[in-house]
């Protein structure tokens, strides 16, 4: 059967027969980098279009429908436009940091791709501290945003960046605690172990109350962490025009834009891995025929399906809710989400110690 697992295996075997192990590793790295960049470009195009279509349907509109059938080439055309645009740098900006910031944001997003299991045995780097790696690297993206806000020498940008800093630092906690819930239950930080632990049922559907609470907390926290509405205070176009990327134009703006969507993809992918079983197909108890049928669907389709479901959920939030105020945002974290997370962690620890889970 042609699956991603077989492809990688045969490629590696073929490379090892032709080259020395070091050389083969180098070539593999290059291939992975190229694949990552391709994935970025494709995801960016798809997610922006998806967002616009979802927004349009919610807002009783049609959405983009001029470029290509159903408007599918709209984002490609937009990208072309952004590439052609002049990339302005403000006169009084800190030029080095100003130009560096979009790449920092982008690189952080790229680093996060490493431990994600896209399909069965299809993973760039199955590191044994996968979850820890993700939560530590993802908090680096705030550096890029702060850099952009400060270097622009624009008051709106600075305000947006400062808001973003406060926001990401706080919501990192809740996201971490939510992830920890699953780690406590599985006893491993390795992504492949976490996926494997959901062999006989996804964590969310096993019916553990702490997991359900953790899932809700996770969705809220990562929405905030990726600066999406209702927590898009860093951009908050009705308050700060465009927040930290007010002064950016052309391709540098596109990188920010892309990084936002990639970040959404990544956090949703992690959410899918932790709570919805990653690439595991849906199995229902003793329905052998049903389970067998589900196994026929490739594992990458399962993974993408779950991820896009979560992405849709986050988009749905964005087009429904008003934005919070900056102090309410922090109140929500410190007065509601954090106590609930701590309580939830306590609960799940008790559950784990007593062995009340399956």
């Amino acid at each position, binding site marked *: 059967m042609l699956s991603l697992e077989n492809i990688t295996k045969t490629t590696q075997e073929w490379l090892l027969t032709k080259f020395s192990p070091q050389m083969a590793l180098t070539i593999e790295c290059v291939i992975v980098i190229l694949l990552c960049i391709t994935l970025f470009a494709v995801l960016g195009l798809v997610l922006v279009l998806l967002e616009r279509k979802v927004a349009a349907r919610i*807002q009783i509109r049609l959405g983009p429908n001029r470029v290509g059938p159903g408007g599918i080439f709209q984002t490609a055309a937009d990208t072309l436009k952004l590439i052609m645009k002049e990339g302005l740098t403000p006169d009084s900006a800190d030029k080095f940091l100003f130009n560096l910031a979009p790449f920092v944001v982008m690189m952080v997003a790229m680093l996060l791709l490493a431990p994600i299991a896209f399909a069965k045995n299809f993973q760039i780097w199955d590191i044994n501290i996968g979850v820890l790696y993700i939560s530590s690297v993802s908090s680096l993206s705030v550096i890029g945003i702060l850099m952009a806000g400060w270097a622009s020498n624009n008051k709106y940008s600075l305000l947006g960046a400062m808001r973003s800093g406060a926001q990401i630092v706080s919501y990192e906690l809740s996201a971490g605690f939510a992830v920890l819930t699953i780690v406590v239950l599985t006893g491993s930080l390795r992504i492949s172990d976490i996926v494997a632990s959901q062999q006989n049922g996804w964590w969310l559907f096993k019916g553990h109350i702490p997991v359900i609470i953790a899932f809700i907390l996770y969705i809220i926290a990562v929405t905030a962490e990726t600066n999406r509405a209702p927590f898009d205070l860093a951009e908050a176009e009705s308050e700060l025009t465009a927040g930290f990327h007010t002064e950016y134009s052309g391709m540098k703006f596109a990188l920010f834009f892309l990084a936002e969507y990639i970040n959404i993809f990544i956090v949703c992918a992690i959410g899918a891995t932790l709570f919805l079983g990653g690439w595991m197909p849906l199995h229902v108890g003793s329905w052998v025929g049903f389970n067998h049928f589900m196994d026929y669907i490739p594992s990458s389709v399962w993974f993408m399906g779950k991820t896009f479901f979560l992405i849709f959920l986050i988009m*749905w939030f964005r087009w429904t809710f008003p934005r919070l105020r900056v102090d309410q945002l922090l109140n929500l974290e410190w007065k509601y989400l954090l106590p609930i997370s701590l309580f939830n962690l306590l609960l799940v620890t008790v559950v784990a110690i007593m062995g009340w889970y399956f």
Partner: protein
Amino acid sequence: MFLKDYISDVYKGFTSLLKGMRKTGYYFTHSKEIITEQYPDNRATLKLADRFKGEVIMPHDQNNEHTCTGCTACELACPNGTIKIITKFDITPEGKKKKAIDAFIYRLEMCTLCNLCIAACPSDAIKMSPNFEHSVFDRSKLTKILNKPGSKIKEGIE
């Protein structure tokens, strides 16, 4: 007591958010609610209100005759000098001189479509047309002469 308030706060907030999501979810799944008008594509079926004030026109009948006497009531009624009437004197077959319009100049770029000229016209020579597609590349094209070349006033209109 505090805990109870806290939990009911969280619950109420959560349900209010879900209510909103149900509404937007309803619209997401019901494509018949879409209200977009695909304007340049639906030009053939576009239905405009018959009273829509798009521009001032001067109707001519099949004999290329209009009913404008050149009384300049519209010119006086216009608040921003949109209309300028240039009159001439025709010689009737009886040899009498008769006032007639030479050019009814209408500047669409200045017009606010207030309908005062039409209300002022005693002989219903001008009216509003629902045409709204006025964009041109050259602004001078918006200055129009409403009476067609060679047209004359209808018999019996004074």
